[in-house]
């Protein structure tokens, strides 16, 4: 069945509240006509409408242009719920809690690494554990793990990995307050411990890139970015720890639904009131998982820096590696937003969506306060990634949120079929991209054409005004799990 939609302008579409019984607000999708064609085909619009049935949802069930079919809420969905009357939903956050992206800048130019990329990629592949079942290089005791869950990247820096100033350039400073390790099951703790400091597999990666184009000189300068500069992007999350937290709380929430008399069209949306024991426990466990992910990206950052120093035989001063920013794109956060002239606290669920706060916002680090914080959008491994910046319009329309990536367009099965008889490694190498991957099937399942056109996705959020393009990054080396 096709979902009725009203096109509001070239980049905004509305699913009317009247479409489905139980919808409390309309659905709003950011897309142009071409992206909308693909979106219509994969049933995710029904999921946008389902999201609108959450008790306490405010304004609209939002979807970004990279939206695709997920479990419960679509990937690319943003839902904000009222703190007093609203719910919190693990399925509205996603399995990989605080899956996110970090960007490092260096003092190197593209020419400095030319002819060295094979060594660099080999080094990264060797030093950063990746792939299924890989174990981290760090040995955490249960006591260490508890500290890490409470303090996130801060704890990792205290152990000597990375630099204290890294923490100033991360969403939440790399640590969500009020994490509750006691709300986490022993299974999650056990799954997490050996996986701290690992990349994982699937769409996760470490990528060496260079800045191919700068769109906004002022912002780029504020972010310390310039044309031709070498950057490194890290995309990973909370590994088995976060997956287990989500799994555990889906069970809890499914039981709580009857208790709180909540009825929703999809079990995967299971939720509980924010103001309930189940809701509070989930928030505590989710924050611990978010901190696990920030810690994970911090360990990996340190090893990336080590590989560059060793492989290029340069000093830390010559490399001058620094964190540009670190964003979470699967998370629920309690934030204050203005609605109809009134400030309200809401729980913003960003499931495959990135925070995009503008200039002047108190949560934007001091160094970026004049321009807004960087928004990091990873593309597929053969195309481009982007740095964007938050805008006031995002605050007004999307709870300060924007897209998170390209979004799949081919199923894994279809990708495999399309890759038959081809060498994706060679195709990438012909384009100047060196790839190393562990998983036999990862490479074909993750091939560039399995993803939407990243340029089209980014153009929509730019044209719609919910973030602005700052720079375009081009991959030259990729490691994948």
């Amino acid at each position, binding site marked *: 069945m096709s979902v009725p939609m009203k096109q509001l302008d070239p980049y905004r579409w509305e699913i009317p509240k009247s479409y489905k019984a139980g919808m409390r607000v309309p659905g709003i999708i950011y897309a142009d006509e071409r992206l909308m064609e693909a979106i219509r085909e994969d049933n995710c619009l029904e999921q946008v409408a389902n999201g609108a049935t959450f008790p306490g949802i405010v304004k609209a069930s939002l979807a970004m242009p990279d939206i695709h079919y997920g*479990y419960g809420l679509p990937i690319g969905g943003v839902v904000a719920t009222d703190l007093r009357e609203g719910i919190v939903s693990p*399925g509205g956050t996603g399995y*990989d809690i605080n899956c996110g992206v970090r960007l490092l800048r260096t003092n190197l130019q593209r020419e400095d690494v030319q002819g060295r990329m094979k060594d660099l990629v080999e080094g990264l592949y060797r030093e950063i554990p990746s792939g299924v079942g890989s174990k981290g290089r760090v040995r955490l005791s249960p006591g260490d793990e508890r500290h890490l869950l409470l303090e996130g990247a801060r704890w990792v820096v205290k152990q000597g990995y990375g630099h204290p100033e890294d923490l100033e350039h991360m969403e939440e400073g790399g640590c969500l307050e009020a994490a509750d390790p006691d709300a986490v099951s022993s299974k999650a703790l056990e799954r997490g411990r050996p996986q701290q400091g690992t990349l994982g597999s699937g769409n996760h990666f470490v990528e060496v890139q260079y800045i191919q184009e700068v769109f906004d000189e002022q912002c780029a300068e504020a972010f310390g970015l310039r044309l031709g500069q070498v950057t490194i992007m890290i995309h990973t999350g909370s590994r*088995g720890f976060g*997956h*287990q937290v989500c799994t555990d709380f889906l069970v809890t929430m*499914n039981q709580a639904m009857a208790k709180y008399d909540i009825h929703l069209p999809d079990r995967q949306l299971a939720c509980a009131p924010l103001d309930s024991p189940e809701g509070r426990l989930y928030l505590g466990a989710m924050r611990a998982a978010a901190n696990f992910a920030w810690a994970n990206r911090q360990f990996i950052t340190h090893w990336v820096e080590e590989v560059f120093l060793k492989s290029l035989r340069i000093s830390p001063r010559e490399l001058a590696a620094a964190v540009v920013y670190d964003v979470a794109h699967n998370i629920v956060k309690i934030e204050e937003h203005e609605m109809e002239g009134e400030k309200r606290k809401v729980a913003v669920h960003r499931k495959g969506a990135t925070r995009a706060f503008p200039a002047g916002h108190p949560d934007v680090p001091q160094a970026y306060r004049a321009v807004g914080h960087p928004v990091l959008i990873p593309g597929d491994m053969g195309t481009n990634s982007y740095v964007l910046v938050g805008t006031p319009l995002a605050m007004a329309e999307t709870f300060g949120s924007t897209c998170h990536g390209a979004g799949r367009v081919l199923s894994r099965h279809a990708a495999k079929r399309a890759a038959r008889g081809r060498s994706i490694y060679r195709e990438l190498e012909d384009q100047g991209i060196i790839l190393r991957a562990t998983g*036999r099937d990862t490479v074909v399942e993750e091939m560039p054409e399995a993803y939407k056109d990243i340029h089209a996705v980014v153009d929509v959020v730019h044209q719609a005004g919910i973030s602005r393009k700052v720079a375009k990054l081009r991959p030259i080396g990729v490691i994948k799990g």
Partner: protein
Amino acid sequence: MGIVAYGRTLPELFSHAALGLMAITIDPADIRPQMEMAVSVQGANREELLLHWLNELLYLLEVEEFLGKEFIVEELSDTHLRAVIRGEKRDPERHHFRREVKAVTYHRLQVRARKTGWEAQVIVDL
């Protein structure tokens, strides 16, 4: 990605679903049934029981590095399952994973009776 499993009986269905999950991760032909693990799981109903059973396999894979090949369901009710799994510990030299399963989801989760037995549908998050 998902699994559609069939079984003449419910225990066979649960056993086949487990094999399906392993096959998403690794080629079962590479696993030798040389040690045993005993597993016991609970669930609120048949579908949730299936979900917990499959999640238990992910846990064994990640924490114990145990790869299952034969799944002998010894006791099964709507809310409880007891099984013995034959398989082996992961050997990085011999075992090459296909992909990582993050979680088994509630999405379109279904266990239903058919004319000739049982059918289950499970979607996994990769």
